[in-house]
């Protein structure tokens, strides 16, 4: 099982790297789905089967479909691909990458010097999770419900197609 964990982790890292470096949005989305699926396998190995199922259904299903629909609506052509390649110059990404690499080295150092007692990952089953969701975390669940409601209404409101109404001070831009 350990070997499966490492193979899946490597697939996740490679797929995520490819997401960040693609120029075509649809290819990046497909690699993102691969990355999410492999992370879901890791959840399963770590003993969280319910979360693994949710990751596939909600992340790789719902959220990614939302992305795909928006990419279809935006209808990006060949020009945007060319522009994307132009933006993706070495001088644009080498600085942030080096800084993040330094952060990563620091994190590796911290995690390696952390002596957590190894082993003993066990299954935390769905029953326990739901008991604590509707026990001590009930306020959080209700707040999440309100958040989702607000997001639905807000997305409907923002995404609505309306005429360009400039403020009177900005009229000259028309």
């Amino acid at each position, binding site marked *: 099982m350990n070997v499966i964990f490492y193979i899946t982790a490597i697939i996740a890292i490679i797929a*995520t790297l490819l997401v960040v470096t693609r120029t075509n949005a649809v290819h990046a989305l497909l690699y993102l789905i691969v990355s999410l699926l492999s992370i879901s396998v890791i959840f399963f190995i770590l003993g969280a089967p319910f979360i693994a199922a949710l990751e596939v259904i909600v992340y790789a299903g719902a959220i990614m479909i939302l992305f795909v629909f928006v990419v279809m609506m935006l209808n990006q052509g060949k020009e945007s691909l060319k522009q994307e390649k132009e933006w993706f110059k070495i001088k644009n990404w080498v600085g942030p990458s080096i800084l993040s690499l330094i952060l990563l080295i620091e994190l590796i150092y911290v995690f390696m010097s952390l002596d957590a007692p190894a082993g003993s990952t066990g299954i935390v089953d769905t029953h326990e999770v739901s008991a604590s969701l509707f026990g001590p975390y009930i306020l959080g669940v209700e707040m999440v419900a309100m958040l989702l409601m607000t997001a639905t209404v807000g997305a409907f409101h923002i995404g609505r197609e309306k005429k360009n109404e400039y403020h009177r001070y900005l009229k000259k831009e028309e």
Partner: protein
Amino acid sequence: MVTVSMNTGLLLASILFLIGLVGVLTRRNILFILMSIEIMLNATGLAFIVAGAHWLQADGQVMFLFILAMAAAEVALGLALILQMHRQHKTLDSNVLNLLKD
């Protein structure tokens, strides 16, 4: 049962998080920035799950559920904003959104 140590899991989570961070910092297309934010949120959730599996507590999975709901709400709003931006500016370049400057 598996014996994946907590260090390895946290290491994977931090690698994924930093890849997402590089994506946010380097891309100019706002769609890719949103995708990188998704990667970062997912890596955070992975860290919670690893910690929850290590201490055999359900709290990690509960936190992951909250992060999941938050990510769904954020993506819905973000994509609506991207649609509006594409309608008004005909581009996805995040550098054109500096109208407040002048």
